């Protein structure tokens, strides 16, 4: 019985709402980054915040990622709860030291005496021809290094709920949002970028994957855009009589090993799909997990679909060749079922 129409929000508005609600709830929460103020974030993640909270809590920064992310760390150590935006994840290389050697390690190196409760949010993903330095996801680059949670939600609902969880978490959280799932007016409009989002604050736990489509024949593990492509592929596979179970990872650290293993133990077949580079990446970790823990349950080799080990090319036909899509997922599963 539906009594009220569900409220629909785009990904970016869901994120901005989460941040706004937490800023209202806790005076220690503040936002900093390039163009997070008047502009509202290049990918809209801070839309409306400057107006609501003013420039003392929504800080535009110089192009100085090491300085301002480092300052966020220093402020977090003093009990603030900063949300720092790294505009594109591709820029991590100018400030990774602060992220992985300090943000991620201070809690451990201090024997737990210093907490760094901060969120590093950053835009990931390609598919719109922004070329080699503006199209990466770098999921595994972050997930490989210990001490930070790494999450990558796929729906407006999860963007809001996981952002609230991230802000309330006492640990550093790298919050990756996919540009194509922000629902921005200047991007390819896709259905998945808009969805039901309750207005009242709520949390979605970090570290839990989600079975977004149950199935019995094969498990497809994916995240962000690849989840949506996997769902498209699953629809078409169903027409062929193949029931794929699709798992949206949502979180890379902690990785929800149980949800993956349960599914593999049920379906006996595993395909992992990733928008990051293939080697030493997410597909490797999930495949290795199954090869360690569910080897006897597997009835076929594991299949990995990811960006081949090439920088993201600019030209449309080239980029389309290297990012997995519904078709390549479909083809891979069909072939695997023949094994």
């Amino acid at each position, binding site marked *: 019985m539906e009594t009220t129409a569900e409220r629909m929000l785009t990904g970016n508005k869901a994120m901005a709402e989460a941040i706004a609600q937490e800023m209202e709830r806790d005076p220690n929460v503040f936002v900093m980054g390039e163009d997070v103020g008047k502009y509202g974030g290049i990918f809209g993640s801070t839309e409306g915040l400057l107006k609501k909270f003013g420039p003392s809590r929504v800080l535009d920064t110089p192009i100085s990622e090491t300085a301002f992310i480092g300052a966020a760390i220093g402020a977090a150590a003093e009990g603030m709860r900063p949300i720092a935006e790294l505009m594109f994840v591709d820029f991590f290389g100018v400030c990774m030291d602060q992220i992985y050697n300090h943000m991620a390690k201070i809690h451990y190196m201090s024997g737990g005496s210093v907490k760094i409760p901060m969120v590093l949010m950053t835009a990931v993903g390609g*598919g719109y021809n*922004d070329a080699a330095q503006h199209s990466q996801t770098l999921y595994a680059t972050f997930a490989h290094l210990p001490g930070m949670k790494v999450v990558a939600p796929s729906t407006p609902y999860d963007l809001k709920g996981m952002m609230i969880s991230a802000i309330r978490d006492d640990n550093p959280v790298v919050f990756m949002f996919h540009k194509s799932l922000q629902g921005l007016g200047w991007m390819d409009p896709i259905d998945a970028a808009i969805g039901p989002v309750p207005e009242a604050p709520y949390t979605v736990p970090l570290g839990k994957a989600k079975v977004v489509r149950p199935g019995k024949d094969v498990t497809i593990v994916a995240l962000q855009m690849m989840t949506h492509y996997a769902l498209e592929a699953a629809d078409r596979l169903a027409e062929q009589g193949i029931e794929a179970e699709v798992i949206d990872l949502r979180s890379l650290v902690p990785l929800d090993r149980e949800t993956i293993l349960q599914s593999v133990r049920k379906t006996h077949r595993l395909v992992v799909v990733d928008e990051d580079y293939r080697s030493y990446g997410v597909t490797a970790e999930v495949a290795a997990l199954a090869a360690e823990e569910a080897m006897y349950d597997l009835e076929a080799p594991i299949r990995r679909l990811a960006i081949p080990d090439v*920088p993201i090319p600019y030209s*449309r036909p080239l980029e389309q*060749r290297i990012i997995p899509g519904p078709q390549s997922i479909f083809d891979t599963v069909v072939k695997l079922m023949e094994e």
Partner: protein
Amino acid sequence: MTVPLPKLKWMYEQMVKIRYYEETMVAVYAEGKQPVFNIGAGTVPGEMHLAAGQEPAAVGICAHLQKKDTVTAPHRPHHHAIAKGVDLKRMTAEIFGKKTGLGKGKGGHMHLFDPHVKFSCGGIIAAGIPHAAGAALAAKMKGKDSVAVAFVGEGAANAGAFHETLNLAALWKLPLIVVIEDNAYGISVPKSESTAVKTNDRRAAAYGIPGVYVEDNDPVEMYRVSEEAVDRARRGEGPSIIEIETYRYLGHFQGDPEIYRNPEEVPLLRKKDPIHRLITLLEEQSVSSGELEQMEIRARQEVDEAYEFARNSSYPDPAEALEDVFHRAEVNV
């Protein structure tokens, strides 16, 4: 000082060419993005940062450069590329994502490489400064008198790479000139909210090198101070900083809502257009309006031909995505 007439003409023709190139790109970039703007659609997808209004920075110093000199540029690179003499056809084809492009379609607008004229650019703020220093170091090691120019925006002067490289270059007396284009904004952030000093020439003191500030987008003054800096570099006396106040007529990128600036700002800037200034100067030196027109026609024709070439070229084969990762090797998939 007066700019020698042939140089003044060269600067004029380049500025006209750049302006027309960028204005043409405004239209081409919009193709396939109407009625609803979609960044990934159309003839030219991806981000597009145009430099209409910023021509003086590029031509004022490139007037002193030769083929052997290196230029590195940032995300807004067309004016530098054109002034440095990059192959316009292959550059445009690259921006169209075509196989005939400088990078066979792999690089795109922010990643143009033309080794024949030693030009490169990239999308990471300030990252080209050390590359230019490296070219300068190579010149020094080989005993050549070539120089390297790194162009950046005023926003880039706050990045760590700026500081590290200028210190290194000053220490090693590298033939490097860092040109800072102060177009008043880094995307939406005004200079006053990003930079603790009013002008970045003051930062030269941190490296014990010369620094100058060129006001009001003045191509002639830019020519003059560049001559000094380039000569100094060629003489082996080390790096300099030049900052020039310049004007960004368009948005940060095409599609920028520009909510952060007063709508009256650009019309006022356009009134002071540096191309008009050059016309006045050329006329003062008795260059006929016929000759000016000829130059403009020639410039436009070159641009039109480049766009034609790009349009008529074909896309790379999808399989080519896997080539060129390593020299003489294909990627294993």
